[in-house]
């Protein structure tokens, strides 16, 4: 069975009922907040609808990771609203947000280094009471590399394999929205392609994905929608193709 075929089995709990398109999964409206007293995010607006890949690009320090942390309740949100699946989640604790169907793969420190791959995946399913065998098998089929080395310590893996563990952990809860922060940073082109491929397959299987990418051109090429952030503000938005075609965006943010 190809990874494509596997991924097309329903991943999201509720993806079956909601076959009509355009239903918003995540809506951020005028979100402000930061780590200390200063606002890093100065009013971010974003929307992810069902079964789409939304790519965030922007220079280093633009606030891309900060926007993801804001969704996940890891910093003080001082204004605006964050609605997921119709519920306002601003101010929720991370474990409640996880239960609400959002999973997050941070940019760094995104695995349990001293635990085996298998245990990393089990931790991903920590909140699930029942049998996790099916989810495990699905993740292992998505990332066959991991299955072979399931008893290896995650900290001993290569960079690409670690990203797979990180994504696999986040997929164990069958989320409806997946936040990926630069999953291809520092990876070889081969691994990058593999991660992008899996990301597309997950989308095709019904998942909504918010993806921060430095490999902007490659990512926008398959994105359903893209946002350009700079200095904590929205700069541009549009479909992936529109942004790629935009001269200003190309010059300023995509390296010409």
């Amino acid at each position, binding site marked *: 069975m190809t990874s494509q075929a596997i991924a097309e089995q329903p991943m999201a709990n509720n993806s079956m009922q909601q076959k009509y398109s355009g239903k918003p999964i995540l809506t951020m409206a005028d979100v402000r907040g930061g780590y200390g007293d200063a606002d890093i995010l100065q009013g971010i607006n974003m929307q992810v609808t069902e079964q789409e890949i939304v790519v965030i690009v922007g220079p280093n320090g633009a606030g891309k990771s900060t926007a993801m942390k804001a969704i*996940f309740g*890891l910093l003080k949100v001082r204004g605006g609203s964050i609605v997921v699946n119709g519920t306002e989640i601003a101010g929720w604790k*991370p*474990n409640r947000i*996880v*239960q609400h169907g959002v*999973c*997050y793969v*941070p940019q760094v*420190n*995104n*695995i*349990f*280094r*001293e*635990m085996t791959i298998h*245990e990393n995946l*089990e*931790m*991903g399913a*920590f*909140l699930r009471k029942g049998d996790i065998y099916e989810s495990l098998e699905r993740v292992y089929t998505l990332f066959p590399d991991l299955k072979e080395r399931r008893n290896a310590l995650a900290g001993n893996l290569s960079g690409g394999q670690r990203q797979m563990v990180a994504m696999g*952990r986040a997929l164990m*809860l069958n989320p409806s929205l997946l936040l990926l922060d630069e999953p291809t940073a520092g990876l070889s082109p081969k691994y990058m392609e593999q991660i992008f491929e899996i990301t597309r397959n997950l989308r095709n299987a019904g998942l909504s994905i918010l993806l921060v990418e430095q490999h902007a051109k490659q990512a926008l090429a398959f994105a359903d929608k893209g946002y350009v952030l700079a200095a904590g503000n929205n700069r541009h938005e549009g479909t992936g193709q529109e942004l790629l075609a935009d001269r200003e965006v190309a010059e300023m943010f995509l390296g010409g």
Partner: protein
Amino acid sequence: MPFMEFVNFYLMPGIVLGSIYALGAVGITLVFGILRFAHLAHGDLATFGAFTALGVVTIFGVSPWVALPVAMVVCASLAIGIDKLFYDYLSERPKIIVVMSSLGIALMLRAVVQVVWGVDTETYTRGIVRPDDYWGIRIRDREIYTIIAMFVIVGVLWAFLQKTRWGKAMRAMSDNPDLALLSGVDNRKITMLTWGIVGILCAASGFFLGINTELKPLMGWTMLLPMFAAAILGGVGRAEGAVIGGLIVGIVEETSVLFIPGEYKAALAFAILLLILLVRPTGLLKGKVL
């Protein structure tokens, strides 16, 4: 010196003492690894456990071995209570503030022991127990029980950490706390669970020190340094490392009297601590460095 004399007078006492240190060091390493601070009240919590068992023995006239589980339960509840009443309020602050708080708790616990039980030296049972001879190895029953109990308690804990859902969550919290939170692990529950386990371990180490020697209000405080040395020697966050570290520190202390004056036995733990920090701060089993 004949080999058997070395075994009987230095090695075996070292292993017994080391087992006691190991029980304490495992608790220290759990707090250090999961809650991420040096718990300075650890020794005095052990003292409290030892005296609680004494209280049970004197009030109900039962054997000390019956009193041990009671002391464990009391100590576990006490540890959870101390966290709820004091440490938990400091959780948003730098960890070193909790270290300071724990120094105060150490003093408070000791004061309670001194008020309730006085300052005299006590024992669980009276009379001298002579060691039995097993093929030339002379050892007392209680010493055998101490060593066995240490391995059983730590073994059960190890299995818990490796095999169960909450045990894995504790390891996850020790490994990468932020990611554990992102995986939906409830910080509070892990903290309470950790304190419960730590209380049990403290009661055990205090009890076994008491049954092998005597009970004094300062007994736990004097164990604090060797227990920390053991935990850091084994590698912070590593339960199995703490056992190895505890045994090494115990054996080194007991055999040291062959080379240096007995008064300075207690200084060896300090020397080991500085040495390991100097040459290999991650410890023997590659633990954390805070």
